């Protein structure tokens, strides 16, 4: 039993954190919003250069072969930066799982895993972000993965409340190849989608809290910083508590995916449930602590709040998570209790 991250991973996180600070400012995001497509090939290549896409990619594809828990902190940091390009999605939904894909599919996409972006669509995440920038589309359902060149996809662009997201509804696939998969792989993809959203929630919630903490230290009313008032302190402490107690659950769920834990679906549900709660209170209390400033386009807070609101129901809504957790509890009543958490089936 060892629930710590190796300190070797700290330097990866620090490198990414440095990249966010220097190359991925909120001003960059605002500038990108002015472009026809906010997806920046230059930023994508910078992140590829940092090795992001190789982290969870298996060694057979020239990746580093880290498991998702080992890479989680790096993705969390990218989410903290509000990166527009779907590199977290590509890395977690495609690269971390590519070696589980049917062999013929592996052959088809292997040259695109490190440098390009492969999009994923699934009934639980039916709108595709930045499809026009993708080198391919994987349409996943319970029994198959369908691969399509983006040129063969007819789609309709739909506006998002988050200008960083460029969503497409898939209307038709003109030519495609179908690969049969078993239910286990599909479940692993769904769990990955939930854990991915949870990891992003952690990073984004931390960003909202940091922005707000800085704001209340400098904004003065009644002759002092509003951060010295207990009403404000307690509001932000409540956010810190929710974030802190989502973290371990998220990292455990990330661990369970590559460790083939029989309960990975439950772990992913718990992770996303807690992280979505953290995101909800982080946005609510951050905007409140900012007062009317939080309600403006000018203050950077909304860049990150919008992302939280946009992704919170990806890969299952809060209600669906509750139903699934409830179903698990009802069918495992006798196993619950103090020895449940790390029990091996």
């Amino acid at each position, binding site marked *: 039993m060892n*629930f*710590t991250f190796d300190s070797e991973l700290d330097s990866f996180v620090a490198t990414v954190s440095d990249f966010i600070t220097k190359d991925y400012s909120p001003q960059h995001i605002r500038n990108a919003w002015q472009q026809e497509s906010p997806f920046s090939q230059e930023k994508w290549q910078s992140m590829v250069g940092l090795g*992001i896409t190789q982290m969870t990619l298996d060694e057979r594809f020239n990746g580093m072969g880290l498991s998702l828990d080992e890479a989680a902190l790096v993705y969390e940091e990218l989410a903290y930066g509000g990166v527009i390009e779907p590199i977290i999605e590509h890395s977690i939904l495609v690269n971390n799982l590519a070696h589980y894909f049917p062999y013929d599919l592996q052959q088809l996409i292997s040259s695109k895993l490190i440098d390009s972006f492969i999009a994923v669509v699934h009934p639980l995440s039916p709108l595709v972000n930045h499809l026009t920038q993708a080198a391919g589309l994987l349409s996943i359902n319970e029994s198959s993965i369908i691969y399509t060149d983006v040129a063969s996809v007819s789609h309709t662009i739909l506006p998002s409340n988050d200008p960083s997201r460029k969503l497409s509804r898939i209307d038709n696939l003109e030519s495609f190849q179908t690969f049969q998969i078993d239910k286990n792989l599909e479940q692993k993809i769904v769990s990955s989608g939930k854990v991915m959203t949870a990891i992003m929630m952690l990073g984004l919630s931390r960003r909202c809290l940091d922005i707000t903490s800085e704001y209340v230290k400098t904004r003065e009313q009644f002759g002092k*910083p509003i*951060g010295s008032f207990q009403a404000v302190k307690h509001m932000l402490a409540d956010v810190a508590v929710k974030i*802190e107690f989502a973290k371990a659950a998220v990292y*455990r769920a990330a661990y369970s995916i590559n460790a083939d834990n029989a309960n990975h679906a439950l772990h992913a549900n718990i992770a996303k449930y807690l992280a979505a709660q953290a995101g909800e209170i982080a946005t609510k209390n951050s905007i409140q602590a900012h007062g009317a400033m939080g309600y403006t386009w000018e203050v950077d807070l909304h860049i990150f709040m919008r992302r939280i609101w946009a992704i919170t129901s990806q890969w299952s809504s809060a209600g669906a998570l509750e139903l699934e*957790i409830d179903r698990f509890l009802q069918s495992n*009543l006798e196993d619950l209790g103090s020895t449940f958490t790390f029990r091996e089936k």
Partner: protein
Amino acid sequence: MLLLRKETQILKMKLNYTNDQNSFRQEVRSWLERNVPKKPLLSLDTKEGFEQHRHWEKTLNKGNWSMVTWPKEYGGRGLDLIEWLIFEEEYYRAKAPIRVNQNGVFLLGPTLMEYGNEAQKQRFLSAMARGEHIWAQGWSEPNAGSDMAAIRSTAIKQGDKFIINGQKTWSSRASFADWTFGLFRSDLETSRHHGLSFILVPLDASGVSVRPIPQLDGEPGFAEIFFDNVEVPTDNLIGNEGQGWNIAMATAGFERGLMLRSPARFQETAANLIKLASNYDNLAPSINAALIDCWVRAEAYALNIYQTASKIQAGKKIGPESSLGKIFWSNLDLEMHAVALKILGTQSELKNEEAKNISSWIKGFMFSLAGPIYAGTNEIQKNIVAERLLGLPR
């Protein structure tokens, strides 16, 4: 620049138990199966119940289970925090009695381990493990509650003695305990956090009087302690004179952070809550949602504590983060019991001993109301989080 270096050797996270840990669990389980009293003990806040619980502490000690993380020479087993968590999981699973000496083994024990001298460790840790010294806390005073640095009780050094005067209150277990540990002002020239000393006082010393205070459940779970020229040898000073505040904060850190409330307790409550609800048809969706929320939070707490324990074992210190935990578990405990009472409906007020599965919830609810107050109110914890973790101004 390429972030990744293939030659990097990562120390893997590993979220399952070793064979040794599994066999340790079996050892704990089978000992508890043989030794946990079949008939529940009386309340530890009655004279008779207190002695029953003291007897249980002695039984634990005979099996070397007083505190598994302590070194063997003090009655422990020299095990690590993961094994302590396993022990606690089995302990709550077996429905073993509440630890009457939790102030001692979970709070003073770790403090002595860090700040006590060898003679003090020899004298107090073993007696604590054997159940001979049951400890009460001596922090709060009538005018020093959340503002603990306002302590006025004094301990003035005269030769090889301290002369103690003043009053402590809300002292848990003091009604029947043998000793108290607490903070006293030893330097009258200084104020606030300075000039305080951490001193151990026997409650049968001349000049000590104890006035039990009935709690919400009617039983004297805490007491006031009055000190009237009480003489205590300077050997009872922990650490240095004037260092008391820092030592007390370390003790409070153990209390909030890890030791006082192991996850097992809440996981058992959460499981009991889910099982309770499964006996009722047609629960409102809001109740169902609250149940799930409680269970998930208990799981989140367990995961967080395993991570914290792993961090401590890897040599990291826990600081103000412990305040996050205290806020989290105290609210969870309260909510679990509140939901149970809603499910029980008109039955919820019943205190009948023969239907413990019902009456334990109202009793637990009464106890859980104290959670957001003791070990530093949650409002103070939130101030600590805001100021020390988020950097907000005082």
